[in-house]
């Protein structure tokens, strides 16, 4: 039986990918991307969790019953990267929204296509 964290991560992943496909608004797409990334992070943490263990922030003398510290370190890096990606993507959405006055992906696609043909 998988742990609660794994189940929640899977649900978040499905919601995230579903939203990415269904919602046409770019802001929603970015939110969904954030959801997918968070679900990965949650999975990375909870695949390795133990019910009674504590966080691995302890002096080296009491290194028993703590969870594996490596995934926690990995997760930090992943969170920072995802933050950078979302921030940059939002800037680009802003630029597009200023130019086309919409955040609708399909409309932007059409306008861009029209401009390139001309």
């Amino acid at each position, binding site marked *: 039986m998988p742990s609660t964290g794994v189940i929640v991560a899977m649900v978040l*992943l499905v919601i995230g*990918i579903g939203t*990415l*496909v*269904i919602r*046409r608004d*770019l802001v929603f*797409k*970015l939110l969904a*991307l954030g959801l*997918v*990334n968070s*679900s*990965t992070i949650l*999975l*990375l943490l909870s*695949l*390795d969790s133990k019910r009674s263990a504590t966080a691995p922030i302890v002096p080296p003398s009491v290194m028993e019953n703590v969870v*594996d510290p*490596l*995934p926690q370190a*990995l997760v930090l*890096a*992943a969170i920072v*990267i*995802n933050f*950078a*990606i979302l921030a*940059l*993507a939002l800037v*680009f*959405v802003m*630029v*597009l929204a200023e*130019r*086309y006055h919409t955040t609708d*992906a*399909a409309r*932007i*696609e059409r*306008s*861009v296509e029209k*401009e*390139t043909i001309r």
Partner: protein
Amino acid sequence: MTIMAVPLIQLAAAAACLLVRRRQRWVVLTAWTAGLAFLVYWITVVAASGPIRETVGNWGGMGIHLIIDRPALVFLLLEQLLAGAVIAYTWRGGFRSTFYALLLVLIGTVSAVCMSMDLFNIYVLLELLTLTSFLLVAYEKRPVQIWASLKYLLLASLGMSVYLLGVALLYARVGSLDLAQVGEYLAALPAAETRWLPVAAALMTAGIAVKAGIFMFSLWLPGAHGSANSAVSALLSGLVIKVGILVLYRLSAILPIGLSLTVLGAITGITGVVYAVIETDIKKMLAFCTLSQVGYLLVGIGAGTRVASAGFLMYVLAHGMFKGLLFLAAGDAVEHAGTTIISQLRIRRREIPAVTRIALLIGSLAIAGFPFLGGFWAKDYLLAGSGVVEKGFLWLFALGTAVSFSRLLPIAVVREHRRGSMNRAVAYGLLGIGLPGVFALTGLLIPGHGWLPRGIWSQAGLSMAVIAIGTAIGWRAHGLRKIHLPRGVFRIEGSIIAILAGFFLVYSTVLIGR
């Protein structure tokens, strides 16, 4: 001296580019020269005493493992060649300091990925590569570019998340992120305990495939590579795609994904070339062709034989060189003729400098597999190392490539000689002169694969015949351009659904191939 020095020098030079007020291109040139010196040194060391290994943060053997082996050397050599050509090409372009800084970050990241043997380190570096290429595509800030690079960022980030899911699954069972160690543990595990392995393998393969330019996964590619500045497209198509391929190559050594890669190779090779044949925009045509050429690389990895591996490495080098050459020359041609449509370029070919036209001609011949140019050697090895079905696919790709590039050949034929600029000629020279020598260059790096393969003349004859047939089809069949292929897959939603479908395809082929 530590092998980390090269990526560090390149990244430090990127920071220096932003700090100095002027002459950023000299900073870039210095960093490039340093990289070249290191590369030459490494080639001699590896030839003398085998791969160079190093552990970053060495806590009793634990840490991030780096390696410079022969495949890494091939990729580093390609990086130096392409970076040198792009520096020469942009020498008089009036590029801002941000361009040079991003260029250096890109090269530094690529060098780091080439030597990385750690699954999470690869993840971080590929994400850095995503961000840099995202900014480089949109460098000129045209709306088309901004839109294409936003799509790229969304899809690539999704792909890397999928890859990280796979890594999480693998780490939970194996408890290591080091490629060599993971390989050992997996080999030692009894078959009953590896039921989770296909899921993890498929997730990782699908995630990397988004970055590697494979048709069902990398549908952002035609938009991004087709709209970016030519210097950027050359780097992205020639180098950044290959980094994903290198990671797949490293993964294929430890995960059972050989059959999946062959199937993906067949799909991307054929669909890519079909789109390339009917495309009318020169840069988009080149981008679609990249999708199709990745097919050769994947079939080469999937075949798994020694000869096919040599062919794969040769093709990496050859494809990087001629695709870089073609993109740079196409950009130059478009600047002079003022149009991106191939038929218009043919009409206005008088306005294109002679050196650019020659570069286009050489690039087109090399990509179509004209005897004794870069593509020919690599294809010869791939053919020699693969089975009957793969051989059929490889010839099919070659025919399609010949058809799509036959349209560029007439551009070269005109008697007027307009002078081009010197720095661009240097760029073409750097990439073009090496093409006939790809065989020797790779021979230097992969010793013991033999000198001239057997049946070289009959192979040359066959290649010529395929090119002739392809050219005949390309010049005669005008109806091809009127075919409408589905374009919906290139929208964000379509691309995501294609990635999901691709994941299930990879998963099922991993199950079959075990």
